[in-house]
């Protein structure tokens, strides 16, 4: 067993500086809030906010406007969808991550009669962020820790269990998971169900009988590493990445051989070019991404070694360009004053050659990230006509408040529209690619900076969006959260959190905490937004039946009109929803819709982890904004399958 120790000098650093988290005075109990007030007891109002900060950015709203020219699914994604017609073989549906289904039996005209066909308990009651997938006559679903895989037989009444597989992850791995012990789902390829376990294994299981085919160890929980992301199969490789950006973990992405599980390449996010796999083929679009060993030189001495930039979000793949795309997480620690520099290559996006892992281009969404604004959100690949010319693009809704439309061949930003209220920056300079940071909102050591919007989970966190080529809209589950923050010096102790910040999150302008938005990709405007009480923390699915499905943390699974956002149907689940829906055609020839309930995740840790609502800085400050969640939902873990009567 590995037992690497951090040297005492780091403790000395902590002790002699402004000690982290040390609070003066004896303090008073705060009482249990309703969750609708901030820690100061106030919800910011849009009017006051605008008056106080004339620099805020807000979306351009063009109600329900659909552009004549709509982005199309790339030909490779269309072919993949045809090949898997009626099935749902990976969380993103295809490697373009469109989460769009051609099925239309369930549609805007009849969805109001949708009803439960069957249910299944996954046996755990921590946050369920996974996606049910369907291959042939079998549905597969993975629970939160201990990550049990279940196969359900869709040919029999009630969809009974066919088999289950228990990877037996280390119990102690739960102690290094920053944000509940979630898993974002399995994927299918080559007769195998492939997924990651919290204790850093990628496992491949025979889809027919549940026998383990291979298992590969990728990391060590004693270094603070875990794995929560959904692998992506890119040709004959499985792309995976690590979690642990709140524990000073050094981020990486890996390609494993689909047949054997053996490592083909590994690319680090920080460190020398050789580790980051930057060589002659690396041609970033913007000047600030060029230079030698930026993964070392954009950090204070040696801090890149525990610099974060983990790869816990979504991976997409263009088989024609042979490029994989993924985002890198926040730099560590959160206390940015301890790490002067741009902190490459965190909080940005890599395009890499699938065969070698060599970087082709990179772009940093949030240089020297101030706010825990990871760049790991999904990159949805579509083709667009842009200023009269066809372009291969990706759409990326970032935590920093903007939706990037980028040329995926070279990393050029075509547009970066604001999709949510933002006062931390003044937008993106399209000429230089630089995010224009608002220094007034920089968090500081030993001083509270108030009303920073968006907060650490950003305007949108991991919750994956869906794209419909029928409307040209990207459907975004997202947050409306601001925060107060105070930084403190933190020393690095391997295997423990490396954060250095006290945060109190609170509802953003308007007082609601979540939104579900339709975004016109072509003209970069908001078509409609549905306000939700809590952050919308699960995924979305769009269908050819002019429907979009998503769930809420207070336990409503909803179908809304893809064009207008009008609510057409909803169903109350047992626990709140943070999972990803999917839709597929059963062996009986009829369309079904599935989703897991089971509240939790970072936003719902107050319920799934039983955290103390009196203490707002709990769960990295999320508890302050979620004090009322335990009053409306309890933990759970049930798969729901819906169909028409």
């Amino acid at each position, binding site marked *: 067993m590995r037992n690497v120790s951090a040297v005492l000098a780091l403790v000395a650093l902590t002790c002699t500086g402004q000690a982290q988290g040390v609070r003066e005075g004896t303090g008073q109990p705060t009482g249990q809030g309703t969750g609708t007030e901030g820690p100061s007891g106030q919800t910011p109002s849009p009017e006051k906010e605008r008056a106080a900060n004339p620099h805020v950015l807000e979306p351009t709203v063009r109600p329900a406007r659909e552009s004549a020219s709509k982005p199309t699914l790339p030909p490779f994604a269309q072919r993949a969808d045809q090949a898997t017609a009626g099935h749902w073989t990976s969380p993103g549906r295809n490697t373009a991550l469109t989460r769009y289904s051609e099925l239309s039996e369930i549609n805007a005209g009849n969805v109001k009669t949708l009803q439960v066909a069957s249910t299944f308990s996954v046996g755990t009651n921590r946050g369920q962020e996974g996606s049910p997938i369907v291959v042939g006559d079998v549905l597969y679903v993975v629970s939160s820790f201990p990550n049990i895989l279940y196969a359900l037989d869709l040919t029999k009444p009630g969809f009974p269990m066919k088999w289950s597989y228990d990877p037996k992850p280390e119990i102690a791995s739960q102690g290094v998971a920053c944000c509940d012990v979630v898993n974002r789902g399995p994927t299918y390829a080559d007769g195998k169900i492939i997924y990651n376990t919290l204790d850093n294994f990628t496992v491949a299981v025979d889809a027919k009988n549940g026998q383990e085919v291979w298992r590969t160890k990728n990391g060590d929980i004693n270094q603070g590493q875990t794995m929560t992301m959904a692998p992506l199969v890119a040709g004959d490789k499985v792309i995976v990445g690590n979690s642990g950006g709140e524990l000073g973990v050094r981020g990486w992405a890996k390609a494993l051989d689909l047949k054997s599980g053996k490592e083909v390449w590994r690319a680090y996010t920080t460190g020398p070019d050789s580790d980051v796999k930057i060589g002659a083929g690396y041609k970033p679009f913007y000047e600030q991404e060029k230079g030698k060993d930026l993964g070392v030189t954009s950090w204070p001495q040696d801090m890149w070694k525990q610099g974060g930039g983990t790869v816990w979000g979504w991976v997409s793949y263009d088989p024609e360009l042979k490029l994989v795309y993924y985002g890198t997480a926040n730099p560590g620690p959160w206390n940015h004053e301890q790490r002067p520099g741009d902190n490459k290559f965190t909080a940005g996006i890599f395009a890499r050659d699938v065969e070698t892992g060599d970087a082709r281009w990179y772009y940093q969404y949030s240089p020297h990230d101030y706010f825990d604004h990871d760049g790991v959100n999904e990159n949805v690949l579509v083709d667009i006509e842009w200023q009269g010319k066809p372009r291969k693009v990706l759409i990326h809704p970032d935590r920093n408040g903007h939706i990037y439309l980028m040329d995926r061949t070279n990393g050029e930003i075509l547009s970066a529209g604001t999709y949510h209220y933002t006062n931390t920056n003044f937008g993106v300079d399209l000429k230089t690619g630089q995010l224009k940071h608002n220094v007034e909102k920089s968090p500081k050591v030993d001083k*509270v900076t108030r009303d920073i919007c968006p907060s650490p989970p950003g305007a949108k966190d991991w919750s994956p969006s869906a794209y419909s080529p029928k409307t040209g809209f990207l459907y975004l589950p997202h947050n409306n959260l601001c925060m107060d923050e105070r930084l403190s010096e933190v020393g690095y102790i391997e295997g423990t959190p490396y954060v250095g910040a006290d945060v109190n999150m609170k509802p953003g302008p308007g007082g609601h905490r979540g939104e579900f938005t339709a975004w016109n990709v072509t003209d970069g405007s908001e078509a409609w937004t549905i306000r939700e009480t809590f952050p919308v923390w699960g995924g979305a699915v769009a269908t050819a039946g002019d429907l979009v499905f998503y769930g809420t943390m207070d336990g409503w699974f909803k179908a809304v009109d893809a064009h207008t956002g009008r609510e057409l149907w909803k169903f109350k689940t047992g626990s709140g929803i943070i999972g990803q829906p999917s839709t597929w055609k059963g062996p009986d020839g009829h369309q079904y819709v599935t989703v897991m309930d089971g509240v939790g995740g970072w936003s719902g840790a107050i319920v799934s982890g039983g955290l103390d609502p009196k203490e707002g800085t709990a769960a990295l400050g999320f508890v302050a904004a979620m004090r009322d969640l335990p009053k409306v939902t309890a933990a759970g873990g049930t798969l729901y399958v819906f169909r028409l009567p």
Partner: protein
Amino acid sequence: MMPMVATLRMAALAAALAGAGLTLGVARGAADPESGAGQGEPQVVLTPQAVGGEAVPTTGAKRAAQYENNKDAIEAGRGLYAAYNCSGCHAGGGGGFGPALSDDQWLYGGSLENIVATLYEGRPRGMPAWRGKIPDEQMWQLAAYVKSLSQPGGIAPPL
């Protein structure tokens, strides 16, 4: 700025640790045979729990009485709680990576002896074992502070 007294105390802590040649870095999962009890450390027995969860301390009761509700011990523990990064997992007491300490539930017993045992030996779901890494005196100070978090006025006011 921190109060001067706290700064001094923490500097003293660092010096004490340096003198003892101790290093930090925590282990989870299987026990590390090389990190056994240091010289002069009392043996803290993993506390058995009676049916229904009532804690039955087997050792350390006299020691506990010196620290529990002792203002100086609690203050010292407050600084250590930050220095050893307890706050990283348990926040200001409300929890996060690890469970809440400021509520009224004690997963492994809420006596000071129980808390010290938890610090020494770790707990299976991810609490690291600090035996050999934190001096015994500080273990009791930390426990005194942790215990104080669930009492009225125990947690810090909001930012």
